[in-house]
């Protein structure tokens, strides 16, 4: 089950910007969001983040939450400092020309699932 990041690069016609060493990671779940606090609240470790943001906080969010990688949509090109940070944090960083909806739909049609079916950590 799931797709490797190598396969995801192919399906999304993506460019690998950082940490190609991590492309063997296997993805089963993904989350599409531009709200990093939502990612921190709702994501589970070992999921892939698909986002329209391309700043430092996206990479730090990915590392803090233990995500498998980040896909930036709509051909956005993160600043060089962001790419360097992703490499340092060992976060595979991909960029695709596809929009958010198309990128999510492409991965969903190949079996990647969202976070909705996974239990959300309960507020205390």
């Amino acid at each position, binding site marked *: 089950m799931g797709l490797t990041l190598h396969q995801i690069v192919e399906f999304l016609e993506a460019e690998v910007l950082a940490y190609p060493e991590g492309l063997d990671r296997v993805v089963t779940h993904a989350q599409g969001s*531009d*709200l*990093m*606090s*939502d990612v*921190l*609240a709702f994501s589970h*470790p070992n999921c892939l983040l698909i*986002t329209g*943001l391309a*700043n*430092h*906080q*996206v990479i*730090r*969010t990915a*590392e*803090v*939450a*233990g995500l498998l990688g980040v896909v930036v949509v709509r051909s956005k090109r993160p600043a060089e*400092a962001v790419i360097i940070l992703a490499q340092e*944090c060992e976060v595979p960083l991909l960029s695709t020309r596809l929009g958010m909806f198309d990128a999510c739909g492409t991965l969903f049609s190949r079996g990647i699932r969202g976070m909705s079916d996974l239990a959300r*950590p*309960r*507020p*205390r």
Partner: protein
Amino acid sequence: MTDPKHSQQGPLQLVQTFTIKGDDFAAAGSVSLAVKRLLKEVGFPPDALRRVAITAFEAEMNVVMYGGGGEVELLLAPGTARLVVRDHGPGIPDLDLAMQEGWSTATAAMREMGFGAGMGLPNIRRNATRFNIDTAPGQGTTLTADIDI
């Protein structure tokens, strides 16, 4: 947290103090990554490590966005980590409101960074085993959060 020197698990020892620069959005989050790496090196277990990192990150973003800078103390006792996050900002006028998911005073610039959705303090509550916020208008804010293994 009635006894500030002790966690539920035992006496706390200060490991390191980190400085957070206010309004430096490019650096925002770097202290939390340093905390995470330090705890990883001492063998803190992954699930608790993730909870510490998320708590630290949300608190750090608040200090950068609203607090005008501050500091983070990381303390450890067997079985628990404590974060004390202090800023010198304006304080939180209505804490009950700030604890509600979705309530926010963020600016457009903060939202463009992917923060300011009103999830910060609720995320801290979700991830900390115990937490306390000491704040008053004009007196800054101090967050104390314990994360038990």
